[in-house]
């Protein structure tokens, strides 16, 4: 749920239009971040309802093309989250992924994709609070950026 200050900012700003709410796709690993999001839920923590969660077995399962494709399909932001380094259910999936993500983030920003559209984080199964805070932060970042248009495929 968007908190009220955020709503007001949107209402008085000229851009983006008030009807727009960020749409964020979150790729969460089954073992840590998804459970962390679950914990945020069962703990009744409030956070903006802007994320659409896609559960993946491991952050290492996230193909960089998923991220680029999500942007093409018109999402406003992408979050990828897995277990903290050292805690991977598959020992090193997130450590291999970390290299891939470091390169991808740097590469997308080099090309001029707005920094902040694509973000990576670590959330453990016990960090419901961290997950809620993370979504608050990312959702605020994306709201500041406005709707994503760079990569979005428009019907022609």
């Amino acid at each position, binding site marked *: 749920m968007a908190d009220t200050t955020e709503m007001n900012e949107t209402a008085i700003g000229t851009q983006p239009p008030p009807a727009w709410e960020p749409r964020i796709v979150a790729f969460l690993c089954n073992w840590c971040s998804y459970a962390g999001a679950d914990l945020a839920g069962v703990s009744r923590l409030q956070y903006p309802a802007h994320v659409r969660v896609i559960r993946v077995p491991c952050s290492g399962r996230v193909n*960089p*093309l998923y991220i*680029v*494709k999500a942007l*093409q399909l018109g999402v406003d932001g992408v*979050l990828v989250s897995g277990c903290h*380094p*050292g805690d991977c259910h598959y020992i*090193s999936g997130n*450590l*291999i992924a*970390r*290299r*891939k*993500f*470091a*390169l*991808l*983030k*740097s*590469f*997308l*920003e*080099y*090309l*001029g*994709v*707005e*920094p902040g559209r694509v*973000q*990576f*984080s*670590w959330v453990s199964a016990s960090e419901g609070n*961290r997950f809620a*805070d*993370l979504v*608050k*932060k*990312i959702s605020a970042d994306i709201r500041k950026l406005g709707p994503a248009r*760079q*990569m*979005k*495929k428009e019907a*022609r």
Partner: protein
Amino acid sequence: MHDAQTKLRETAKDLLVSAKVDLVLGFQNGSLPLRTRPCFARNAADAGRLVWNRLCTNNLAVYLPRLFEKPANVRGPWTPPKVAVVAKGCDARSIMGLVKEHQVIRENVVIIAMPCQGMISLRKAEAAGASARTSKLDGDDLVAQACLECIQPSVPGANIIIDGPSRSAASDRFQRVKDFEALTAAERWQQFVAQVSKCIRCYACRQACPNCYCKTCFIDQTKPSWAGVGDDPTDLLLFHIGRVFHQAGRCVECDACVRACPVGIDLRLFTQKLVKDVEELFGYVPGTSLEEAPPLSTYRPDDSECFITDP
């Protein structure tokens, strides 16, 4: 130059006649001026056609993976061929990479190391016009950008070395990338889109690249279909981001993609960013050794975390 060519022909002839190799992959004169084309030499007569000059631009490593693949019509045991490759520094680096990725059998490849002074850029030559062309073939005026920035003109993993004058390694090769980094995000995006929107999706860049040996390229996949088949600008963006990113930690800056592109897209500006990042973040330079694991198949516990978002 000519000495090297004579020695190359002799070497190739020896290798073929003594049946040390089944095939020598090299260059022969093309039918257009300033062009060479690949030569698949299988006997002494073929070896006599081999040439070596500053127009031997192609990266012949591109042919290797398919030579080491068991043909579909062969049942039972199959002996992979022995192949000698006429190689510049960049070509040999590609071969090293392919060996690491298990596409090429190292023992079956004889790397013939050629002296490289830098290859002529056809685009620069065309721009210079006919008269300038012939007079400038010796200096650095018409040399391709990639060669001016080459860090490895000497050939890694050479089995046979053919001597001759060769250029020295460049020190700073990332100036263009740094200049691009210094632009604003909006300017970079605008330039990237401007480059990519010229693309006609011929996929020549992919075909020319030795690293692009996948049986089915992501761009050709239909399940899932990553991109539409038309000329939608976002499909072009997706193709280029995908292609270049698949080169992360693998691109040897051979410039084959740049040469192949019929519309002259500045692909190097984008492939080089990943080369630079891989070098800076993981201290890895592709194709220089056989021992080091490919950077994206391994990790260090202390790899950079600076890109992680903390709430």
